[in-house]
């Protein structure tokens, strides 16, 4: 039997050096400065499921995505894919693992080489990973993929600029699929698209997931999109995962005060009469984060302990939560 967990992230951290140049530092007598973009994040993604990461701008979503696809290296921690450690695997074995994880970016304009024909863009992973025996097979595969994503086989002769934003995102998806992956990291794949085009792409992603048994790490700041797509959701705040819950649970009974704040801030586009609450304060600088629980300056439940001690992860009704008030039962559960 295959293992149920496909991707496992353990205590993953990523620090960026944001110091001034060495000489300035010496003259101005400033210490080296680090920014903690990802702070000891752990989560796992089951095969065939969609795990979503949400959080405000700068919370570390894209950095986690880049760590998983090996665009940057972790400062510490481990990423295990199908039982093998990504940061510690090299050579041929790594190449195979890397093929199985592909990424789709937010900006369908920047992620496609404007000078290449669409057919060559999609064929590149096929060549790179040696997935076809002949040019005829490459062409056939490319045409099949274009068809799968809702474009025409003859579109392979065109250039990216001849397509709309939504169509370019379809091309990006076809390219990702050409590597025959089982895991797709999707960083805000529809944020640059209009809602009607977004609906087409989200439907397509669902269909492809069913057809190929794909597993998704889906990043978005739009909670209604996340609700539509995700089985489980991880909420990030200043690089830490403050809550990790099954999707239904998160929307019904958000456990962490920050999750509640995010949910309360969603605009009521259906005009159901739900009152949107004002958000207090703004996300602090990650270079100089608050002590203890980093959310404490904005939290209505914060007390002296919150300001000093970083909360540990505890489990409640299937949710993994890092919050003292939740652990101590100081927050009345809302049922809705």
């Amino acid at each position: 039997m295959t293992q149920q967990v496909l991707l496992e992230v353990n205590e993953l951290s990523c620090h960026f050096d944001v110091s001034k140049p060495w000489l300035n530092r010496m003259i101005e007598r400033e210490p080296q400065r680090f920014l903690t973009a990802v702070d000891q994040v752990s989560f796992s993604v089951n095969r065939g499921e969609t795990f979503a990461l949400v959080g405000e701008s700068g919370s570390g979503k894209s950095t986690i995505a880049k760590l998983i696809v090996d665009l940057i290296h972790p400062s510490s921690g481990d990423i295990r894919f199908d039982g093998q450690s990504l940061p510690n695997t090299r050579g041929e074995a790594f190449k195979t693992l890397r093929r199985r994880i592909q990424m789709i970016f937010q900006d369908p304009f920047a992620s496609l080489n404007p000078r290449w024909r669409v057919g060559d863009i999609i064929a590149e992973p096929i060549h790179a990973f040696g997935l076809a025996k002949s040019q005829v097979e490459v062409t056939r595969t490319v045409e099949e993929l274009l068809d799968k994503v809702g474009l025409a086989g003859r579109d392979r002769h065109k250039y990216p600029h001849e397509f709309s934003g939504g169509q370019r995102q379809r091309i990006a998806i076809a390219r990702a699929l050409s590597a025959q992956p089982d895991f797709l990291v999707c960083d805000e794949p529809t944020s640059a698209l209009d809602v009607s085009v977004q609906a087409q792409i989200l439907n397509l992603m669902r269909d492809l997931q069913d057809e190929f048994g794909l597993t998704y790490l889906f990043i978005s700041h739009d909670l209604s999109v996340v609700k539509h797509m995700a089985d489980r959701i991880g909420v990030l705040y200043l690089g830490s995962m403050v809550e990790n819950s099954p999707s239904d649970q998160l929307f019904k009974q958000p456990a962490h005060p920050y999750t509640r704040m995010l949910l309360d801030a969603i605009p009521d586009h259906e005009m159901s009469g739900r009152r949107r609450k004002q958000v207090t304060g703004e996300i602090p600088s990650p270079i100089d984060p608050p002590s203890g629980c980093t959310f404490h300056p904005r939290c209505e439940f914060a007390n002296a302990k919150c300001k000093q001690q970083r909360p540990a992860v505890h489990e409640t009704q299937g949710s993994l939560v890092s919050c003292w008030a939740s652990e101590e039962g100081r927050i009345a559960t809302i049922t809705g």
Partner: protein
Amino acid sequence: MTQALLSVRDLVVEFPKRKTRLTALDKVSFDIHPGEILGMVGESGAGKSLTGAAIIGLLEPPGHIASGEIWLKDQRIDQLPYDQMRRLRGKRIAMIFQDPLTSLNPILTIANQLIETIQTHLPLNDKEARARAIQLLDEVGIPAASKRIDDYPHQFSGGMRQRVVIALALAGEPELIIADEPTTALDVSVQAQIIDVLKRMCHVHKTAVMLVTHDMGVIAEACDRVAVMYAGRIAEIGEVRQIVKQPQHPYTQGLMGSIPSITERVERLTQIPGSMPRLDAIPTGCAFNPRCTQKIDRCTEDRPDLIATDQGQVSCWLYEGDKP
């Protein structure tokens, strides 16, 4: 009913090209009343920003108003000489753009920029203008305004900068604010705060606001009425609740269904087949007809104008003869 503050009538904006000309706005008509927020929705390229640019006389040449009229109360403003239009801008009509950084000068303090704008429009001395500037910052919710006023834009977060831009827009005490995607670059949490400021300002000063956005959440939250644009035309105008709950135009119906719901989870989102046509390929008859699942014979030949129904106005043949 009170007199409309802004009246746009059959506005046509064209871009001449070598052999043809592109009609980017095609007979756009709507009104905004004092103290009212009118939302403009539609996908990118529908003509929302161009409508705003045409109103404040900032169309990029060779784009120009080919026909139609724009009235600000009793004054016709679509043919004003450059000088008069410039005086109108900032004073009677103010603009708020998506990216607060484009509206703020990075090398001047917030105080400098606000005081200068205030003095352009109001006869106040330095001290009075500074006091007014602090009052404005306070109104848009900048904490410790008297301390922060001497900061530079880069010392403010994105949300605070957008508040400053709103304060700048309010400086001339305008009658109309055109806000083009004012919250698109901001996080939802900050977005809520900015919408609140806009709503409060509109309410307190009886300013009319044209709020351009592609975000239905923002529309539902902020607007009184909405105009839905498609391919340079108005598909439908109505009370926001009507548009959200009972959209009439087939395009609006598709658009509403395509938004994922926060309250219930569906297997598939409603999907409108195809995409909005480019300006050089707008079909004859109803511009939406190739994508419409309800089309009838005449849709491919005759173009529907806005038809009044008991729920608002809709340009769709299905509602002909429905007049209340």
